[in-house]
């Protein structure tokens, strides 16, 4: 391994997607292998399985296809996470399968990613899966995307073919209008061309290798910093009878979901609308003058207010929406369809409430990325719905903030996670009634 003790400071999370035989697992195996992140015992295990199933040839996909059924069937059935490091960065890779029926896994893997790598088989070009995966990456608000045009060796490293595919992708990208940057890289995952080292087969390609791009893409500004959002996870009450200082301690613990908080800042507790001031930012490492997203902290307020898990503490400007009727885009992940009138549990930040589907606006047609009329959403559908919740929620639009704009739907009884939701702009922003009197 080339890594030295002066370790890289940034962490990049990315996911890989493509259809069944696009070579995702091979690509990840290649990234790990060529960046010297594979150990001798792993290579030994590969060689052992190569002798049994591979006719003696090492199969890099076996590095990532961890479950027995996957090795036997040569498929990836669930999201697998891989870790590797170069002297520049640390990486978390979500390897997400390409089967149509496993869209839920891609949504899972992509939901925490800064970047998506979409694999395209150079022989096949753009297929429905390519559109679907690109669309999901856009829907989930992933800022950076890379199209790795794979198996270039099988099209004789043709620049024309590469450009043809690139143009086809570029023709539907504007409709998605979300990615901060888009890259196209011609590769051969099997042989390693342009994966870690630049390939001598592509003199016509002036860009970086995939790994170099992953190491250098600018991700520092991926977190939202406008308007404080602090969902309360846990109320910290030591109730210590012997230490008088701790006896009255009442802290509000959570992870900042957006923005910055400073000692002395005025804050508002939602949905109640009660005001207070930050007395202390308590951490195990001592009190802090300020804290920012996504730090985990404990806030102590000047006033002893009735605050519990599920409440949200926000700043005095950039108020979020408060309400109990919402529009949302949903990825449905269960064989039982979502339909109007169905009741679910909805988990949003640290809050779980009852919700009812008041209507389905439509389902996204993957070949055109457009909304078509529909009455319900089936497994792996993405569509727009209307929801009512039993209690008001404090929300932002998903495209403004992934953490306060997202929710999951849970089936009561089985407790299965059924779907992932992304909120549209809320109808009503929070505002104080009788504003002039309350200041």
């Amino acid at each position, binding site marked *: 391994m080339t*890594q030295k*003790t002066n*370790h*890289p*400071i940034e*962490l990049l999370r990315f996911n890989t997607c493509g259809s069944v035989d696009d070579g995702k697992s091979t690509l990840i195996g290649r990234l790990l292998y060529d960046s010297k992140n594979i*150990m*001798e*015992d792993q290579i030994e295990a590969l060689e052992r*399985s190569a002798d049994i199933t591979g006719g003696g040839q090492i199969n890099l996909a076996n590095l*990532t*296809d*961890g*479950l*027995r*059924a996957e090795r036997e069937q040569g498929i990836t*059935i*669930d*999201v*697998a*996470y*891989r*870790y590797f*490091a170069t002297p520049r960065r640390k990486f978390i890779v979500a390897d997400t399968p390409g089967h149509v029926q496993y869209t*839920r896994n891609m*949504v*899972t893997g992509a939901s*925490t990613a800064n970047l998506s790598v979409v694999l395209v088989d150079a022989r096949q070009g753009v297929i429905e899966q390519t559109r679907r995966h690109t669309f999901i990456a856009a829907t989930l608000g992933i800022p950076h995307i890379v199209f790795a045009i794979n198996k270039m060796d099988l099209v004789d490293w043709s620049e024309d073919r590469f450009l043809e595919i690139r143009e086809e992708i570029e023709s539907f990208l504007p409709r998605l209008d979300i990615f901060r940057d888009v890259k196209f890289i011609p590769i051969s995952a099997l042989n390693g061309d342009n994966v870690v080292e630049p390939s001598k087969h592509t003199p016509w390609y002036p860009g970086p290798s995939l790994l170099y791009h992953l190491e250098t893409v600018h991700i520092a500004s991926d977190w939202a910093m406008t308007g404080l959002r602090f969902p309360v*996870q*846990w109320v*910290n*009450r*030591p*109730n210590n009878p012997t230490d008088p200082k701790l006896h009255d*301690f009442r*802290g509000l*613990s*959570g*992870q900042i979901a957006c923005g*910055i908080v400073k000692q002395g800042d005025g804050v508002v507790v939602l949905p109640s609308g009660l005001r207070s001031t930050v007395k202390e930012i*308590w*951490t*195990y490492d001592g009190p802090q003058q300020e804290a920012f*997203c*996504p*730090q*985990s902290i404990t806030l102590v307020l000047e006033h002893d207010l009735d605050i519990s*898990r599920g409440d949200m503490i926000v700043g005095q400007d950039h108020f979020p929406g408060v309400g109990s009727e919402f529009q949302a885009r949903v990825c449905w992940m269960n064989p039982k369809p979502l339909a109007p009138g169905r009741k679910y*549990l909805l988990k*949003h930040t*640290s809050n*779980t409430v009852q919700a009812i589907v008041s209507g389905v606006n439509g389902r996204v047609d993957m070949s055109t990325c457009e909304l078509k009329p529909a009455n319900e959403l089936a497994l792996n559908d993405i569509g727009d719905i209307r929801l009512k919740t039993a209690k008001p929620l404090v929300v932002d639009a998903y495209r403004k903030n992934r*953490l306060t704009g*997202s929710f*999951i739907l*849970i089936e009561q009884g089985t*407790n*299965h*996670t059924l779907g*992932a939701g992304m909120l549209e702009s809320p109808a009503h922003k929070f505002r104080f009634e009788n504003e002039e009197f309350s200041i």
Partner: protein
Amino acid sequence: MSSYHLDHLQYLETEAIHVMREVAGEFERPALLFSGGKDSICLLRLAEKAFRPAEIPMPFLNVETGHEFPELIEFRDRRAKELGAKLIVRTVEDGVAKGFVTPKPGVVSRNQLQTPVLLNAIEEFQFDCCIGGARRDEEKARAKERFFSFRDAFGQWDPKNQRPEIWNLYNGRLNQGENMRVFPLSNWTEMDVWEYIKKEQLEVPNIYFSHERECFRRGGQWLPMPPEHADTTKPDPYDGARVKPNEDRRKLIVRVRTIADMISTGMIESRADSVDDIIGEVAAARVTERGSRADDKASEAAMEDRKKAGYF
């Protein structure tokens, strides 16, 4: 303008604290699995960061095979006391005596016997959630684990039927008898663990550092010599794990890289006697951490099979 930016350890830390607080917020009776090993040592610090100045709102639980390194037991007991936590210990031996654990004839390792003991302890104390220190980078089957890993009423993991885990919205809902395993260190690597130990100046048991020890060669590994069979009125607990006349026996300078018990932990020859040395060693390592675990070598799917049965 100041820079609002977290490095990778700070990011992993805040993610893990968030996970721990979700456990405290969503479960009635959680427990924290604390063995005294390096990963669970990180868990304790994260628990302090998540819950101080209050008490850590869950007891510690450990399942002993009976073949533990004595140094580890001493460390475990002392740390629990220092943190003011309640430590619950359940043993394979006790499980055998009570009849809910049946050793396989001829198998000396009690590694697999820990599973029924753990499940029994979960039932005894009605734990609805156990926080563990497992990491996804350890092993291929673990690479597919969730942060919140659902176990059915039999304690089983079903990799094909896991709950999708989207954003940081963990679904902790359970029915009676079901149970959750939660892994705050999911995204940590072996290197991250040691860098965190260094950064937080965490104490680790001294068997992680190089020391002289009598070992014997078996299955391509140097295994530690088990303690003397003191009480000869009882059967030897290390029967089958003792050095045989034809096996190579040596005094070596060794340390452990990962700790199971004395039967399944290979000692590695090493001069690393500080955390910095260990970090250097991990960076230069040519085999994975679990390459020194005899329990994983059984077959390529060894871990998968144990996890399905309810292993940690």
